[in-house]
């Protein structure tokens, strides 16, 4: 899962960046409205955490501009202005959820998680596909026999993306875009390596290879 964090307060931004990364997301940080609007349109983010009080362009305007251009990326608004009037305006502009400052990181993570699942069309709660379950808090995999399996950060991101999009054809470049951050070294061949590692853990039949096209997760067909 790749997120865009838009926060102009440098100290809070870097802390959040760190916390979100720790929670298993690939995170890009943007500190002003104009930059955020451009990056949000260019890069295929899975979710954007948007502060409303931004320099150069207000967050609400950025959000409604995205929506006007048909960019339907899920957006969680993060703001210190917590009046209901502003909440209503935020949702009207196209937000998916709203977190008021000050917040605790667990609250933000829970909201992000819920929105991601809702946008992927799955029911909120634990992520469970076929007979495997992903414990998102501990970044662990729970297998059929309740056996827990630790995952590396990249393995976790990749598997979560697969599990949120079961039965969909996912190309290697798409996986790369959603698993890595903007400035990370993107080598799509590395995806093959990670897919193979995942197959060793969850069994080879759950991730199928479509030659020349990409991968499909799950026993949909």
């Amino acid at each position, binding site marked *: 899962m790749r997120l865009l964090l838009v926060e102009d*307060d440098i100290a809070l931004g870097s*802390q959040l960046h760190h916390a979100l990364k720790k929670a298993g997301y690939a995170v890009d940080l943007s500190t002003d409205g104009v930059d955020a609007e451009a990056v949000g349109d260019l890069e295929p983010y899975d979710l954007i955490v948007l502060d409303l*009080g931004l320099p150069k362009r207000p967050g609400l305007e950025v959000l409604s501009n995205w929506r006007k251009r048909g960019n339907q990326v899920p957006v969680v608004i993060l703001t210190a202005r917590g*009046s209901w009037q502003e909440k*209503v305006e935020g949702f009207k502009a196209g937000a998916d959820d709203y977190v008021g*400052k*000050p*917040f605790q*990181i667990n609250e933000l993570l829970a909201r992000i998680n819920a929105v991601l699942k809702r946008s992927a069309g799955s029911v909120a709660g634990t992520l469970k596909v076929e007979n495997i379950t992903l414990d998102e808090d501990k970044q662990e995999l729970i297998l059929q026999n309740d056996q827990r399996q630790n995952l590396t950060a990249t393995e976790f991101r990749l598997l979560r993306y697969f599990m949120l999009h079961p039965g969909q054809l996912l190309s290697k470049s798409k996986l790369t875009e959603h698993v890595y951050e903007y400035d990370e070294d993107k080598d799509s061949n590395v995806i093959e390596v990670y897919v193979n590692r995942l197959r060793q853990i969850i069994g080879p039949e759950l991730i199928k290879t479509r030659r020349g096209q990409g991968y499909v997760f799950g026993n949909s067909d």
Partner: protein
Amino acid sequence: MASLKTRLSWGLMLSLIALLTLQWLIVMYAISRLTENQLIDRLQRECENLLTIVSFNSSDQLQIDAQRMGAIYQRPFSGHYYTVFTSKQSSISRSLWDSELSLQSLAAGQERKLRLNGPNGQSLLVVLRGYKKQKHTVTVAVAENVEPLQANIHRFQWLYALISVVGLLVLLGVQRLMVLNALKPLKNIQVNIDKLGRGETSLLELEGPDEIRPLIDAINRLLTGMDRKYHRSRESLGNLAHALKTRLSLVNQIAEHPIINHNPDIQSSIYESTTVMSNIIERELKRARLLGDVRPGRQVDLKVGIAELINTLRQIYASKGVNITSEVALNAQFFGDKEDLMEMLGNLLDNACKWSRNRVSLTVMDGEGIFFIIEDDGDGASAVDLNMLTRRGFRADESQPGSGLGLAIVNDIVESYNGTLNFSRSAAMGGLRVEIKLDQFKEKTT
């Protein structure tokens, strides 16, 4: 202080009455003087005419050629009379019949005018003149009844007075219209200020005569200044809150640091402090907004506001799947600040959604004022406790789980509208029932 209109009317009325009375007096005096003078002139000429027909014969007998004096002196009591007399004899006109005018003789060259009661109660003006004719001293008197003339003058007096009074009334009417017209801009300003009070406009209309425009200008300048100040202080309060809350978020993040994370006691007391601080900021920010609101009374589109709010809440509670229904009475109207309404209903609906199993309802009713009723099907806080809380007054640092701050803000808003906030158990849904009654002064239809 009496109204300007009355004062202007009285002033004008008194001066008009004084002017017209004076004019009436002068005209009346002039007319009676003129007619009397004219009459005297005529009587003097008659005296001279009379003298020409007076003669003495050889035996010193007084003789009058009465035929030459005209028929009017022949008809009895015609109102025109003459008398000629010497110390020994006298002769009267036939019109006098058997009555007599008691007159004194005059020396030659003398003249007197006097008023006498004549026959038949007539009032006579008499001119007496003394002459010397054929060596005899003769006194000649000619009299005329002035009653017909006086009656004419009286009729004229009445007519003149009547015209004056009608004129006075017409002038007063015209003046009243002029005053009303001149004061119309003031009435306009009053209507405008009422609108301002209801928040339908932000400035007074710049129309009116030159005398009033400076006043409107001054009020508008004051309004603009106050508005600017109010906005500036509101903005700076908002900025302060924004900056502080961002920093509090950072404190929360720092509390996630492994060093603190391993001491859950310290971490939770940091969290608690940041929450309380944030609640204080939020509450005071909103309270300051309520106090500083200079333009209450704007009509808010209830339907749209409530629909937007419910849409928002549906999204917030999307994962819980709360069914929120609303019913707004057709003629229910809310005059006030939209933000107040949103804040009040938002907090209460949010609480209801939080505590409900899956159903929340909002009913807006019209009556003596406006009623908002929010019910849920949960088994949240006890109504008795909540009523106690409102009576005791909320404190921002009250750490009521989840609902303290929201209810405190709702309470502040309801108080600022002089309304009442009541908690009870919902008979229809089983959960909490919150009822708000706000007094609403409907727009006057004047």
